[in-house]
């Protein structure tokens, strides 16, 4: 196991947002996090990335309690992409990607060839190499999201946490981003809304409702007509697609 959560509880005031969640993300696999709006996906991702502390329960990174690891060592292995990464500053793409090396550098250390290699690899993988000297404000939505992904990859993470990364992207970029993330040899946890994408690109799925996990398993175990009706309130038919041999959902 790469990330393991046990009995997480997180409250804002008296409202319980995360209510006793346990899950395991296996190394190198892509874990999809599904659930209606307000079911607690974003909050869970923040807990898993170590950005918020749960009131009870614990999170283990390779068997080590995340509370005993400092912020910087966590950032050296866990990368996080928030839902709307916006800025009014007009950085170059290359400078944004270089931010990913921040946790690997001390206050006084210079820029090393290893840093350079990580940044170049990240730019190549995300297809942003040609745009490296473009300004952030001149990028399209898809390019901004790919730049954020490149920044996260430059962190050389072993775990990648993404919060609805395909929001606001056109279908070409949605598929491209999901394909890239699922092909990476690192552990990924992705919050998603598109159930068919979840089916196609995730190895395992976890479905949340009102801060609890209501289903988990492989896509064909989880994505059933009953679950879609109970959790997402939609009538649907689920068939195995002849194209990718995974469940495909038809909304009726």
């Amino acid at each position, binding site marked *: 196991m790469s990330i393991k959560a046990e009995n997480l509880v997180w409250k804002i005031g008296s409202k319980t947002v995360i209510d006793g969640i346990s899950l395991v993300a296996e190394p190198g696999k892509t874990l999809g996090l599904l659930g209606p709006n307000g079911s607690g996906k974003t909050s869970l991702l923040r807990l898993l990335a170590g950005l918020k502390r749960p009131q009870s329960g614990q999170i283990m990174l390779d068997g080590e309690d995340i509370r005993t690891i400092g912020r910087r060592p966590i950032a050296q292995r866990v*990368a996080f992409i928030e839902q709307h990464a916006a800025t009014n500053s007009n950085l170059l793409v290359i400078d944004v990607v270089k931010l990913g090396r921040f946790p690997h550098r001390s206050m006084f250390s210079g820029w090393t060839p290893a840093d350079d290699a990580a940044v170049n690899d990240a730019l190549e993988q995300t297809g942003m190499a040609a745009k490296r000297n473009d300004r952030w404000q001149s990028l399209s939505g898809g390019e901004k999201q790919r730049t954020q992904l490149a920044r996260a990859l430059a962190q050389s993470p072993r775990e990648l946490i993404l919060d609805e990364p395909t929001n606001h992207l056109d279908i070409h970029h949605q598929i491209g981003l999901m394909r890239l993330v699922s092909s990476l040899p690192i552990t990924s946890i992705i919050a998603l809304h598109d159930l068919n994408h979840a089916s196609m690109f995730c190895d395992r799925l976890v479905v949340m409702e009102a801060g609890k996990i209501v289903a988990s398993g492989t896509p064909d175990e989880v994505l059933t007509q009953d679950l879609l009706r109970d959790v997402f309130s939609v009538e649907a038919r689920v068939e195995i697609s002849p194209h990718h041999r995974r469940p495909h959902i038809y909304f009726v």
Partner: protein
Amino acid sequence: MTVTADTGGARRAFGQFLLLGGLLLVAITGIALVVGISVGIGDLPIPLATTFSAVTNRMGWTAIELNRIHETVIWDYRLSRALVAVFCGAGLALSGAILQSLLRNPLAEPYVLGISAGASTGTVAVVILGLGAGTISLSAGAFAGAFAAFCFVALLSNGARGGPDRTILAGVAASQLFNAATSYIVTTAGNAQQARDVMFWLLGSFGGVRWPEFALVSVVVGFGLIACLLHARMLDAFAFGDETAASLGINVGRAKLALFALTAMMTATIVSMVGTIGFVGLVVPHAARFLVGPLHVRLLPACAFTGAIFMVLADIASRALIPQQVLPIGVVTALVGVPFFCLILYRYQRVS
């Protein structure tokens, strides 16, 4: 292969070192030039060469015969004034740059956020209510006021669950509150002469500053500049907000507290000496960003340099615009700053 890579790296480092040294030399020469011009302007015009000789004489490098009155005016009045203006401009511009980055708002600066108003309340409390005396206790009072204003803004903007826009509104409230407090203290506890002095000081004036003020402000702003430069990369990492900064391994709470305290300290020291000078912290970082881009390792020194030059020029303008009369420096900076503020506000709203 590795050898050539290493020598290439070393050559590049040496090149950067030379470039850095060259830029530093240009910056110091530029500042020295405007300081020289500033020293020369006034009821008693003094040529640049005389000022230069006076400085080298005092350093013990030369022994040129000079007019005694010139030398006194240079040393006892104008040089300390010009040098304090250098550090005040640098400090206010740095504070503005840091606040704009941390709050992610292009309109943030100590004056707009009410930090200057808080500092002036603290200073007035020390002067009129007589809490302690001397330059240090003035600065301490200003710092307490600045920090109180900052806490007020932070609590109000957090309590309102607001984004960066709310911070500006909270700053407006803080300005109003602390300006009211200042007026209250002045009208209830001060006499007519004190009230007039305070009113003049509130708009900013380099009139009273001498070498002790220079010593304090140079140490505080010098320390501030070095501390900011050490945090330059961290400030870059705040570009996408607190969440992304935290995910990059930054202890956001601690970093923000340290940097805010630094801006409060610089602002408070400056306000306690020369009053509230607005819009320097707003205009200069934008101009500097336009020149050197948004990366803080370049932006911060550029802000310090541009702020220093801008402030000395503003001081020159305040003395030269109307013959036989000195305008408050805040009037000059506001005349330049307010149109600029409107421009940024207009552009900012169109973007968002």
